[in-house]
């Protein structure tokens, strides 16, 4: 059961129960919709950029605990970052969740709680859905799918 408790850590369950920045954003400059047809996870991501800085970020949608918690933590981590920093964070997160479970990964703070998905290959998409949607929003693609 240790793998299960790695996946459903308290911090993840908490973000699932009380997702942060979980609302639409009036005056958003960029939005994108993410969809995972495998499980029906669907989220809309809102960004408000001032120049190159992410001033505000929020999301709405329905999904599993992993996708919801991931989106919630991501929005927390993005506030005040530049687009270039957000890009770099995307790369680091992507590397973390796609590194084989027997190899070490860098410490990403709270986001590291999602490293547990590596033991559950089909759930990696759940954790990365919000991040792919972020990519799409920043490059102004309107819709992204992880299938």
């Amino acid at each position, binding site marked *: *059961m240790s*793998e*299960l408790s790695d*996946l*459903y850590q308290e911090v993840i*369950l908490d973000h699932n129960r009380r997702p942060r920045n979980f609302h639409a954003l009036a005056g958003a400059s960029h939005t994108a919709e993410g969809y995972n*047809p*495998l*499980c*029906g*996870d*669907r989220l809309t991501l809102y960004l408000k950029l001032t120049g190159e800085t992410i001033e505000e970020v929020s999301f709405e949608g*329905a*999904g*599993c*605990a*992993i996708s*919801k918690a991931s989106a919630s933590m991501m929005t927390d981590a993005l506030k005040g970052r530049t687009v270039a920093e957000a890009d770099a964070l995307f790369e680091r997160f992507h590397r973390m969740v796609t590194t084989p479970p027997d190899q070490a990964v860098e410490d990403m703070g709270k986001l590291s709680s999602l490293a547990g998905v590596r033991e*559950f290959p*089909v*759930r990696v998409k*759940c954790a990365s859905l919000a991040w792919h949607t972020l990519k799409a929003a920043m490059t102004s693609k309107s819709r992204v799918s992880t299938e």
Partner: protein
Amino acid sequence: MTQETATAAVIPARGRTSAPREIDVQRVRADFPILERTVHGKPLVYLDNAATTQKPRVVLDAIASYYTSINANVHRGVHELSERATEAYEASRERVRAFFNAASTREIIFTRNATEGINLVAQSFARPLLTAGDEVLISAMEHHSNIVPWQLACAATGARLAVAPIDDRGDVILEELERRLTPRTRLLAITHMSNALGTITPVREIVGMAQAHGVPVLIDASQAAYHMRLDVQALGCDFLVATGHKLYGPTGIGVLYGRESRLEAMPPFLGGGDMIASVSFEGSTWNVLPYKFEAGTPHMAGAVGLHAALDYIDAVGFESIAAHEAQLLAYATQALEEIPGIRLIGTARRKGSILSFVMDGVHPHDIGTIVDREGVAIRTGHHCAQPVMERFGVPATARASLAMYNTREEIDALAAALRKVREVFA
């Protein structure tokens, strides 16, 4: 080839009774090698039968025996092996005919799966018939495979897809269905048993309604076919599709039954070898039924495996299977209802052994992952029936689907695993 008789996995009826012989589940289980394995260190509890069933050893042996003793291409060579392979392939067709009680083997077309059968009918029957303003009628609980082929045929012809609604329990509303049988309806395509809800539809009554309006009917029997005896002549349908891998047989082999007069009037679906009578560059003529609809080298080993699977089902007996599954469904329904926060989706008056459910505050995908770690295999998601999910206002459900080899102990394991889900998300 040596076709072993399926193990008669039943215990003899006690005394003079007309009740179906009770299944000896442990003997049935012993016939399915995969059921011995463990998953994540726990005994496998396979409750994803609506997606595909496991295979008894007689099916695996029949396939191996085909390849080790008689493999050759069919309907071609004059040599011994080709003749033997052709015999085995055609013997399977006869077995399928008898299984569904079709009038003739000319009415039995081998396909890859049920989906291909529906596409064949959509392209070769519906499409040439449809004109702008015509309608194809389906129900609101069809699998995507009984929606999309009709959408393609409609898009190509300007016809319209009409949908008969279902009620809150998941039953087709028959009056609404009848209201949609209009002078423009060219075909009714409906499931016999919903893969997402477990609903068993009153197909005989529905076929009767359609016939009264002169509308031909296709029955999607993918789910029903491994739970109950189907008789295409008694049903009176024009087409029926089923798939081998849900009949305890191999993947890649399916069956289309078509009334001979319908099939005769239809143009071929796929072109190629075997489906022709003669070919020249000026034009070709078609082979007779059923070969007109079987282009290219068919899945001979699949047909042989399916033959063994149907023998196995009949050796156990549908009466016994149905009685066992009904008991298990009642037991499982009660077990799930006792777990706080679980709500069943699909509570039709007549149901097959499928339990679709949601749990308060927990997404089905999380349920699936947690119970998997307990060795319990269930399906989570939209079950290729997104309109059904929409109808019940859920993004997805978890689904446990039962087959002849499942036991009460396995239902207990599912219930225990679901209580664990509650603990994780407490």
